[in-house]
């Protein structure tokens, strides 16, 4: 890989990282509004408020950057970056078409999961450095949530990797067949729920539960740093939706996959993101203890069952 190719791939990943979360955010704006009997943004940009999130970004840039007096300034400052970068790294490993990937590595499924696990460090750092009890509670909730949900998630991904016989996401898509939808369904459900919990989306948004702990780890953040945390949240949706698409929905598999592969991947991922938004509008938040009960009593046994089922089928068919 030449330097030029590396630069082009990096720029492409950064561009996707900046554009796709905005698309998800706009989807959330409009879906949420119409599901609540509203119109949502209608003015920014002219046509149905398509530029609302760009206007929001411009607003965030202008805002004062406040750092609490008691805050641990250095940690407070770099926490948004620590939350943001892992999702960008994760996005680089996810293929959206046949050979269209930021960085094609042999164990990309492993790499994505490893990168996503780091994101919570940004929350912990922000929560701790803010010198605010609500920030602290939010960060601790996020960390506990990650510990509880990383395990079923990894088990579910391990099941798919076992079925495909490879840890490469591109390899998994190549091996994927439609009947896997049924075979891997329990694992898909577990992965989806665990992904929701990992990116702190309703009904698992206790770390930022705004009606309980202000805004969790982001309580003391303003301006651009706060916007980075929000961008990380939506980038998380993008990464998880793409990962779900690649692992369980066959990625770019579909009619005219050779030419429309990327479209299929993005469309499937967008539908997953829309479902995530739909759940946010429809469902209340779980209590903290219900969250952990769900993980340890339901998700991990189901994930283990899926792993065993996959192993049995793989052994019997090959």
């Amino acid at each position, binding site marked *: 890989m030449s330097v030029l190719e590396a630069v082009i791939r990096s720029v492409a990943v950064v561009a996707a990282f900046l554009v796709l979360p905005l698309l998800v955010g706009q989807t959330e704006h409009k879906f949420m509004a*119409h599901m609540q009997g509203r119109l949502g943004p209608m003015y920014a940009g002219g046509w149905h408020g398509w530029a609302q999130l760009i206007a929001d970004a411009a607003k965030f840039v202008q805002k004062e950057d406040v750092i609490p007096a008691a805050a641990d300034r250095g940690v407070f400052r770099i926490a948004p970056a620590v939350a943001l970068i892992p999702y960008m790294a994760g996005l680089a490993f996810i293929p959206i078409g046949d050979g269209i990937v930021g960085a094609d590595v042999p164990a990309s499924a492993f790499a994505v999961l490893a990168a996503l696990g780091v994101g919570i460090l940004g929350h912990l750092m922000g929560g701790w450095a803010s010198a605010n009890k609500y920030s602290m509670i939010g960060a601790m909730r996020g960390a506990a949530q990650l510990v509880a949900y990383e395990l079923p998630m990894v088990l579910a991904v391990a099941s798919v990797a076992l079925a495909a016989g490879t840890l490469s996401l591109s390899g998994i898509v190549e091996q994927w067949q439609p009947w896997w939808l049924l075979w891997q369904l329990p694992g898909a459900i577990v992965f989806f729920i665990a992904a929701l919990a990992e990116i702190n989306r309703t009904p698992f948004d206790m770390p930022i539960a705004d009606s309980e702990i202000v805004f969790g780890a982001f309580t003391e953040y303003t301006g651009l740093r706060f916007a980075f945390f929000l961008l990380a949240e939506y980038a998380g949706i993008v990464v998880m939706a793409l990962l779900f698409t690649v692992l369980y929905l066959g990625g770019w598999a579909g009619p005219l996959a050779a030419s429309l592969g990327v479209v299929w991947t993005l469309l499937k991922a967008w539908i997953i993101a829309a479902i995530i938004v739909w759940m946010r509008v*429809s469902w209340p938040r779980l209590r903290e203890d219900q969250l952990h009960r769900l993980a340890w009593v339901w998700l991990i046994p189901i994930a283990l069952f899926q792993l065993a089922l996959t192993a049995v089928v793989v052994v019997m068919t090959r």
Partner: protein
Amino acid sequence: MSQGPFAFVAGLAGGLRTTARTMRRTAITQEYPDVLPDLPPRSRGVIALVEENCTSCMLCARECPDWCIYIDSHKETIPATTPGGRDRQRNVLDRFAIDFALCMYCGICIEACPFDALHWSPVFELAETDIRDLLHERDRLAKWAQTIPPPQPLDPAAPDPAELAASRKPARPARPAADGAAAAERPARPERPERPARAERPDRPPRAERPAGAERPERPERPARPPRVEPAERSMPLPRPQTDDHGAEAPRAAAPEAPAAPEAAAAPEAPATAGEDATTQVLPTVASDPVATDGPGAQA
């Protein structure tokens, strides 16, 4: 999850179904700056002034809970129209302003205006970039008067106005003849002759007959209470004449303690005596002056 996982999942699906159904419906939002709102009749937007009707009576300004109405006026003399006639005076409005930064849109000024000079107008876009511009002077208030909507038609099921209802009420049946004479004079009137009798009650002799010295022995019985202070406490503390009628005043201050309330209540029904009784009992300090000059004080 208390009802089992299936009820739980059914509840989740129900939530998704509800939001999906709402999404299919068109939002009823009126996009305000582009679409003007459909205001109800009698909506309270801004207060309009019909200057011709204003008599500068200040009722609105005085009733305003926020004191947001400013009225300046002066009197002008209208010369008599007939020789030997009397000159008339009228109020001329110099300034009428409402500070909508203070106004809370209660509408009390409009209710209070006896000449319908103030009206609600549905215009509501009053925002200004400078708070001082929210003080609407008379020319602006008069401009709002052109936006007053015509009155709503009456509800056909509404009761008649009070004036109509009164005019339609059947006339009262005539009273029996025997009562008629008494009714003409009011039943309370015949009691009037009783009042002199009450004034001669033993504990309270008529003032003119009260000998100053006869009541004096009462004073030592209540040495702790200076007789002057007590009536003053019960009414407004007015300046009192410090003359030598001191002794004559003392018994009067002490005596009316018990009958004070009934006498005050009875005062209006006896105009002839009420003038004296009411003033002496309800406002003893004021009444002391005539008593001091031509009452027992003069005798003493």
